[in-house]
């Protein structure tokens, strides 16, 4: 994880030697003055964002997989990213004059607009889920989340259909996901949100372990299931919602990492799985981001393409090795 972090700080369009990176981090000067700016203003916030976001997505994916007892559940099954996409689509695709500024000002005012739109959208989706959570069974909740996803993507399709090509381009760029648009000041909002979400997740480790046997057994062993489900949903809301608002809908990581961790540790105890997923998620996010930069070249790949390229083989391998059956047979 530390190695990934250092590698991420060193690698990029401008390769900076490791010793200089360490010296700059320690408050010193690099060999070239420009390196200071690159490391401190661009790469460090990006690396911190990637670590936190990777941890957040992996942990929220784990929470959802256990809550729904479904190996294909991930951070976004509840419609969080669908809601955020709708919010961003409305801003990017339908707002008139402001759009060009949004395009120009990535990292400035426009970016904040996107964050607000994504937060509002995912917040709305979560409010619906939370409202439903008290009234319906967990399985119904999962189905509602999927239905909500289809409904929002239909709305987004309609918006795209009536929109201009350049605006569609900027919307699509958002859906690629990126750790690079988060500034130090935004990180002051994102980091505490994710840290609180991770702490909440850790606090639900005991109910999550009991939930491995299903809600009926968890309740019979003294777990207040409704309350536990509520806490798990709030944690997921903070984690997945926070990441989506600031980095866009980053796929696959949240589904793949928990499986990777279960496969490596060969145990089901969430007191281990949660921290392990957080660390592994952070490392995978850093690696994905590094790969996306295509070190040694000026080109940049869409982040989601990289996470999917890493994630899909992992999930494929797991399915072929029948681990899904192991983890979730009833």
């Amino acid at each position, binding site marked *: 994880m530390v190695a990934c972090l250092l590698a991420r700080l060193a690698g990029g369009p401008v390769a900076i030697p490791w010793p200089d990176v360490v010296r700059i981090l320690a408050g010193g000067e690099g060999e070239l003055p420009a390196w200071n700016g690159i490391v401190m203003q661009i790469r460090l916030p990006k690396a911190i964002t990637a670590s936190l976001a990777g941890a957040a997505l992996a942990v929220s994916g784990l929470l959802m997989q256990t809550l729904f007892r479904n190996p294909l559940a991930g951070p976004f099954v509840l419609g969080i990213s669908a809601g955020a996409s709708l919010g961003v689509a409305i801003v990017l695709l339908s707002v008139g004059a402001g759009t060009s500024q949004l395009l120009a000002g990535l990292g400035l005012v426009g970016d904040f607009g996107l964050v607000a739109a994504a937060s509002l959208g995912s917040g709305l989706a979560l409010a619906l889920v939370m409202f439903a959570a008290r009234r319906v069974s967990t399985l119904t909740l999962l189905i509602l989340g999927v239905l909500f996803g289809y409904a929002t993507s239909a709305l987004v399709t309609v918006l795209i259909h009536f929109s201009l090509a350049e605006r569609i381009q900027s919307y699509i760029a958002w859906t690629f996901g990126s750790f690079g648009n988060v500034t130090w000041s935004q990180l002051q909002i994102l980091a505490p949100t994710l840290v609180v979400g991770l702490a909440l997740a850790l606090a639900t480790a*005991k109910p999550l372990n009991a939930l491995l046997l299903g809600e009926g057994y968890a309740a019979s062993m003294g777990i207040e299931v409704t309350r536990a489900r509520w806490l798990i949903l709030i944690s997921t809301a903070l984690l997945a919602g926070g990441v989506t608002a600031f980095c866009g809908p980053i796929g696959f990581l949240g589904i793949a990492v928990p499986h990777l961790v279960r496969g490596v540790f060969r145990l089901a105890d969430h007191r281990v799985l949660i921290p392990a997923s957080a660390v592994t998620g952070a490392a995978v996010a850093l690696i994905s981001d590094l790969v996306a930069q295509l070190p040694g070249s000026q080109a940049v790949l869409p982040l989601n393409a990289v996470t999917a390229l890493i994630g899909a083989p992992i999930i494929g391998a797991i399915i072929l090795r029948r681990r899904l059956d192991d983890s979730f*047979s009833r």
Partner: protein
Amino acid sequence: MTLLEMTHTEPTPRPLLASKQLTTGYGGRRPCALLRDVEVRLAPGELVAVLGPNGAGKSTLLRTLAGMQPALAGRVELLGTPLSELRPRQLARRVGVVLPERVAPGMLSAYDLIALGRTPHTGWTGRLRSRDETVIQRALQVVGIAHLADRDVTALSDGERQKVMIARALAQEPKVLILDEPTAFLDLPGRVEVMSLLKRLVRQSEAERSVLLSTHDLDLALRTVDRVWLLDRRGGFHTGSPAELLATRAFETAFESEELSRYLPRGSASDPGPRSEPVAPS
């Protein structure tokens, strides 16, 4: 005869579990009552089978008595305290449940699964203390699965897994053990083993413990249990020892089948246990 000595004599001191004018069924927009105004008593050290045809409400009764489903009317008392006044954690320390669903989460050893039974006793992190470890070990011993402790539960047979689930319920140190269809999925030797295990659990416990189970294995249940709660599809409820209910042809009536007579054990002749206690049918 130790068996005679250990069997309680009437009148029973205080029931572990009792209901007052209990009506069970499903609420919601169209409430549907299955049993009306039943008074059940589960005495300490008693092994009771809930029998009856499909749809008579066996599971609903068990779930209501276990506090997993609200009663439509009336109430259930556990050691004199209404279930509704117990917090989930307190309830889980007194009542252990084995559900009919098949559960086998991966990456979990038999020991770890049984350790989950300590959930109502551990702190918020779920960390096991030495006393918890002792209780888990004892549960493994009592159920006779100590050799399976390190095996992954997905690698166990249905019978072995059911014993693990029972050991898990025992790790809660319950006064009352409630099992819904514990012998479903099992082959005949497996069913016999589970039933004799349940018999041992009420006979051997120093702490007075009772076991309540539902089953479709009429024959096996009638040879094993102390008392039967018999339900029929019209909301009828009868209680008595197996011998008494056999004598009154209650099973033929409840199951609406005369053919049943040929299959049932013949009264007290094939009924080894001492069950001469007088019964006050509720």
